[in-house]
């Protein structure tokens, strides 16, 4: 109890320091006076009496020390004093302090932001319960519709019938849920709202989707298997984000009636916040409907087609089952189902039957389309940031070393006066800690403030883009890691010089000038600068490589003209169109848009470049397939007349699609150069025939060949794929459920120099049909550019970091050169006195500086090969390593080294020789 009281008293004693000290002084003085009087009374002289008194009393200072030790926690007090002292010292060297703090902040902040981004896209798992129990069918993600009874490499998409079969006939799965692989848009309108329907992304999911994920509703309830049956009233779940943003968290939404593509449905509940579905994508679904609602809502229903595979599967494995066993059981079930459809299979399918298989892959991360799309680039960014952290650390180390050197004299003095090694190290330790803390705090601020803008840069805002389901708060782990790294560096390089100085014989250190000792200390610093130069070289070459890649990507021959063209994306299905209503709609659109002043041409198509998506088999007339394996495929597009002129694709041979190609005239097709080359070799394809099924090889006559154009953005940098074009007027509109009848893109070419506004276009579309929701209006140039945002961002960031590193290297070089020049002042004075000119002195100093940079370049050169190899393997076909870029990087480095060391060199030469000689 007494100890506690004592402890508390000591804790608060620092507030009473003044009074306590004066009180003690008074008491001691009084005590000694009384003792003195006593001795005087005993007969001693006053002087002798005082001396005796002091002897009897004992050491006054020692008493005071002991008193103080007793009074407070002296260790804490001295710590506070040390910290204040360190702060004052740092304030006295503002350049050093600011440079170090900024460098640290930059390193920590940038690193954390990038790591957070990479983390979020590459590493997070779904916000569901026990994601490690989830497995998906299919190792690669496939989109979006596959027909037939065979799939190359693996069966990753299934039809509804196959899903049911797998669900019911496999062992080891607690739940198996299905959802489409493609993104669907719905025209959604709340009952009672006056506004037109808006398009929202949505998903059809199986009844057990939510229970499989194990999530609970935020409000209302989620879908159950009862909702997913024939004849059940259409129930819908709205996502938390859509509910919040579009309807302002209005509780009356739950239970309200909404119309989906005209079909009424009841909203039964809200998903929990943070749940974004099964796939990380830029537009997560706003609405979840049961699979059995698909025929009601979608006019081209795929639910009943047992050979249209459009669903992906994720399942939860039972605790007692193993993934390989479940996989095997699923494979058996697949084969059984296929066999049950043997009669409907084509010869091709039958031949491929033995190799049909499927794979299970961990599904905790969801479907990884975004991961696959962006993964490589983000990894590159990750590497770059690691580099920057390295450079930052070495910079801090260099700064600390300099500080240590300037402190050397003081340290030697302290050691000479009897300070222990611990005491000597303590001071720089405190300084380094303070700097690291300040830099860390600033870095955290940068990380918090910078991640969101970085995210918005990385994932561009497309119209309709509602925000990415990524938490921009930087991860604690990354923050701590970066902080710990800089702290460690700061500490190591702050203490090292002090330690070295402490071990040196103080006499050595104190004797004469600082020259001799300082020289020894500059070797680690020089090494640091060389390392920085090498790293900088690597970053510069990487930046150069990436930039050239991006340039090449953006300026590759497109095969179409992006300038002066507008693209309107629409979805006639959302307005409830049936296939027979389409031709008049298309005509109306072309007429009304054509009437807009400034428009010189308009064409409709299934997809405009650089998009793509429809494929089919090709069987050539007169050239039957050798074997079922020799299946030929091609992409295809359905376009209206004049398409090629509108899009700006050159017609190489023959003609394009024209007004004369009607339903009454013979069926024609126009093919691309690659198509012609791949299927006809050197022969003239004009007049030849081909078909889409093995038994209809005379379906279309080829009337023209166009140049290759960039369709299928996924094949950036890859070879062009064959594609053929069919006239819209010749489509078979009697096939009411044919999805390819619904054209999605309207391409508008404007007269050169005339600007057609978006409002004019929207007005024209509205006059063709006011109920038609438009999802997108932009220029073709923007559409093309948006394909390259990710690579462009990476290249830009890398260049930024490279320039930053160059600056850091320059600063480091400047420091080293200035320091060296300072050390060699005497030597320079002697040289100048002996007749050296200014220029020779400048050269002397420059030589060492540029020499350092040159060494750095030599060290880094072999690594540039490695980096280039890594990058080219990541970026699929960026071309061979370019020595020109490395040369340019080296030259840039050399120039900045030159510039950085020029100032100190010139300053050294400007000194008067006599002053130089006298300097210490």
């Amino acid at each position, binding site marked *: 109890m007494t100890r506690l009281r004592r402890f508390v008293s000591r804790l608060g004693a620092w507030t009473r320091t003044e009074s306590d000290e004066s009180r003690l002084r008074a008491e001691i003085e009084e005590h000694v006076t009384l003792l003195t009087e006593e001795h005087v009374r005993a007969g001693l002289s006053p002087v002798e009496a005082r001396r005796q008194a002091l002897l009897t*009393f004992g050491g006054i200072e020692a008493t005071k020390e002991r008193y103080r030790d007793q009074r407070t926690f002296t260790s804490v007090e001295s710590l506070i004093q040390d910290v204040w002292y360190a702060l004052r010292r740092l304030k006295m060297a503002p350049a050093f302090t600011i440079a170090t703090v900024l460098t640290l902040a930059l390193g920590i902040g940038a690193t954390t932001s990038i790591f957070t981004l990479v983390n979020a896209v590459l590493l997070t798992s779904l916000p569901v319960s026990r994601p490690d129990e989830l497995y998906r069918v299919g190792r690669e993600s496939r989109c979006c519709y596959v027909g037939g009874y065979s799939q190359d490499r693996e069966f990753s998409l299934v039809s509804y019938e196959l899903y049911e079969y797998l669900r019911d006939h496999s062992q080891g799965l607690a739940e198996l849920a299905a959802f489409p692989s493609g993104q669907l848009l719905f025209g959604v309108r709340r009952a009672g709202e006056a506004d037109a329907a808006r398009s929202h992304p949505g998903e059809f999911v199986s009844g057990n989707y939510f229970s499989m994920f194990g999530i609970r509703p935020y409000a209302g309830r989620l879908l159950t298997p009862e909702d997913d049956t024939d004849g059940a009233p259409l129930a819908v779940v709205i996502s938390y984000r859509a509910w919040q943003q579009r309807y302002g968290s209005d509780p009356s939404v739950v239970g309200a009636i909404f119309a989906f593509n005209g079909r009424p449905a009841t909203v039964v509940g809200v998903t929990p916040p943070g749940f974004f579905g099964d796939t990380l994508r830029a537009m997560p679904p706003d609405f979840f409907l049961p699979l059995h609602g698909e025929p009601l809502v979608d006019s081209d229903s795929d639910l009943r087609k047992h050979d249209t595979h459009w669903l992906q599967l994720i399942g939860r494995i039972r605790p007692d089952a193993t993934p390989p066993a479940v996989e095997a059981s699923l494979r058996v079930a697949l084969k059984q189902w296929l066999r049950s459809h043997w009669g409907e299979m084509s010869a091709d399918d039958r031949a491929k039957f033995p190799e049909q298989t499927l794979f299970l892959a961990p599904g905790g991360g969801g479907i990884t389309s975004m991961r696959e799309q962006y993964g490589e680039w983000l990894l590159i960014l990750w590497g770059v940031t690691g580099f920057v952290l390295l450079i930052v650390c070495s910079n801090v180390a260099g700064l600390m070393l300099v500080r240590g050197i300037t402190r050397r004299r003081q340290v030697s003095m302290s050691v000479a006066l009897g300070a222990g090694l611990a005491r000597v190290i303590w001071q720089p330790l405190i300084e380094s800690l303070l700097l690291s803390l300040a830099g860390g705090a600033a870095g955290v601020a940068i990380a918090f403030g910078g991640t969101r803008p970085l995210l918005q840069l990385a994932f561009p805002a497309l119209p309709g883009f509602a925000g990415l389901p990524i938490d921009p708060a930087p991860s604690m782990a990354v923050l701590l890691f970066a902080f710990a790294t800089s702290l460690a560096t700061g500490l190591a390089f702050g203490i090292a010089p002090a330690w070295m100085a402490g071990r040196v014989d103080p006499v050595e250190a104190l004797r004469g000038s600082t020259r001799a000792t300082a020289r020894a200390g500059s070797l680690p610093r020089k090494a640091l600068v060389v390392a920085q130069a090498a790293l900088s070289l690597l970053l510069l070459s990487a930046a150069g490589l990436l930039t050239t890649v991006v340039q090449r990507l953006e300026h590759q021959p497109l095969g179409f003209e992006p300038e002066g063209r507008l693209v309107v994306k629409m979805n006639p299905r959302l307005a409830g169109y049936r296939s027979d209503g389409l031709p008049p709609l298309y005509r109306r659109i072309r007429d009304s848009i054509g009437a807009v002043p400034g428009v010189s041409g308009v064409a409709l198509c299934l997809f405009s470049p650089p998009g793509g998506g429809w494929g089919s088999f090709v069987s050539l007339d007169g050239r039957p397939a050798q074997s079922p394996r020799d299946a030929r495929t091609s992409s295809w597009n359905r376009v209206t007349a004049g398409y090629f002129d509108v899009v700006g694709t050159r017609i190489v041979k023959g003609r394009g699609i024209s007004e004369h190609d009607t339903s009454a005239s013979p069926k024609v097709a126009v093919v691309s150069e690659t198509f012609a080359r791949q299927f006809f070799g050197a022969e003239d394809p004009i007049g030849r025939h081909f078909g889409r099924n093995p038994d209809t090889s005379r379906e279309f006559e080829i009337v023209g060949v166009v140049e290759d154009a960039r369709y299928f953005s996924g094949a950036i940098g890859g070879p062009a794929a064959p594609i053929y074009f069919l006239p819209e007027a010749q489509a078979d509109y009697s096939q009411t459920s044919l999805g390819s009848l619904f054209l999605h893109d309207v391409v508008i070419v404007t007269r050169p120099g005339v600007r057609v506004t978006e409002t004019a276009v929207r007005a024209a579309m509205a006059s063709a049909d006011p109920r038609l929701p438009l999802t997108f209006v932009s220029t073709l140039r923007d559409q093309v550019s948006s394909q390259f945002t990710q690579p462009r961002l990476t290249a830009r960031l890398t260049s930024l970091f490279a320039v930053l590193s160059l600056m850091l290297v320059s600063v480091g070089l400047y420091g080293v050169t200035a320091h060296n020049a300072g050390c060699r002042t005497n030597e320079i004075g002697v040289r100048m006195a002996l007749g050296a000119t200014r220029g020779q002195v400048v050269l002397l100093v420059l030589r060492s500086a540029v020499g350092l940079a040159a060494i750095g370049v030599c060290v880094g050169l072999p690594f540039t090969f490695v980096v280039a190899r890594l990058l080219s393997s990541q970026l699929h076909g960026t071309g061979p390593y370019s020595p020109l870029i490395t040369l340019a990087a080296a030259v840039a480095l050399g120039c900045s080294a030159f510039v950085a060391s020029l100032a100190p060199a010139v300053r050294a030469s400007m000194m008067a020789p006599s002053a130089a000689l006298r300097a210490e």
Partner: protein
Amino acid sequence: MKGKTDVPQGTLALMVLRTLDVLGPLHGYAIARRIEQISGGLLAVNQGTLYPVLLKLEQESAVASEWGVSENNRKARYYRLTRGGRGQLRAETEGWEQATAIVARFFAVKAEDLK
């Protein structure tokens, strides 16, 4: 300074408490004189060591101090025993007596008693 012995700081605190107990409130110099007196000049302790001890006792609330006027009309700081201090003194005295009793038995033992 012949034959003077040193004692641990704990016993010094005990002596201070006892002195204050017997003689009432005193100032620092007086306490030092009395202790010297009572120990018969056999204690080899610097008078200055008193003050940290007094501080410790004050922190433990065994003594309380206040400014007062001394015999020769000078300002001095007087220390007095608190109730808690009295209790502490009693407890420590008991402890000492017990310890000395046990040690005394050992000194009194002879070889034959242990056979």
